[in-house]
């Protein structure tokens, strides 16, 4: 089944809230080999000017992918997840995601295109606090490999 191009341009209502806590940030930092104490020590984070421990630069993907699920898992979108490969990922941080944040994500399907028998879908997730403070713009391109 082909990817449904009608989804291009579609925006979804905000999803969440996703609660961010210190244990989650420490586990993520450890998994990517970060030694930076701003992820694990409240004291170090506050000395660097943050309210509490902050997220590593790629942590936002964990929330963005939960937001994407509403689209990726929609049977109408026609995405065969067993054929999906992550093609590109980019983050623009507006302020670091911080322990204690309650995050909302607003998903937009930017483009759906076909090339060389594969489909490429670019989604953008705007992460904000529940109060509306901008945190991160996460842009992701997935490639859905064509069937043989």
């Amino acid at each position, binding site marked *: 089944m082909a990817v449904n191009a009608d989804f291009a341009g579609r925006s979804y209502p905000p999803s969440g809230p996703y609660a961010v806590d210190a244990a989650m940030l420490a586990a993520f930092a450890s998994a990517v080999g970060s030694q*930076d104490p701003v992820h694990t020590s409240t004291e170090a984070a506050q000395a660097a000017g943050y309210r509490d421990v902050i997220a590593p630069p*790629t942590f936002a993907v964990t929330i963005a992918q939960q937001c994407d699920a509403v689209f990726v898992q929609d049977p109408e979108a026609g995405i065969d997840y067993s054929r999906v490969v992550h093609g*590109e990922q980019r983050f623009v941080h507006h302020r670091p995601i911080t322990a204690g944040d309650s995050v909302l994500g607003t998903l937009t399907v930017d483009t759906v295109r076909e090339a060389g028998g594969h489909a490429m879908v670019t989604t953008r997730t705007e992460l904000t606090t529940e109060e509306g403070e901008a945190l991160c713009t996460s842009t992701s391109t997935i490639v859905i490999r064509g069937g043989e």
Partner: protein
Amino acid sequence: MAARSLAQTAAGDTIGPVTIAVARETLVAYANASGDQNPIHQDEDFAKSVGLPDVIAHGMWTLGAAGSVVEEWAGDGGRVVEFGTRFTKPVVVPQGGGEVEVSGVVKSVDEDTRRATVELTATSEGAKVLGRCIAVVQLD
């Protein structure tokens, strides 16, 4: 750690190379921390059944590991204000573990915004695994 300053930074500065070991356990830890439990990153039989050479690392683990190298250079992870890549090849993680080598070069420094643009290179077994991997770091 203190955040890197503008005075400390110039175009052409290099970072690394840093060699990062990746074990199967690393990928289990990443799967648990990220929520991405795709079995191609943990189960050798499954990975091979879908045509992969072996277990492969999550692309986002590889980007995250490269991010840790940038953080160390920046002196404060919160200073990495933009970060992105194309995933060009998977990092293969055999039973005995694999390796990724990460290096970087400062492409430009904007004195007005006090931001440095860093291009990173990540290779595994001689193949480039991240393409156009760019970080923007807010300097002190």
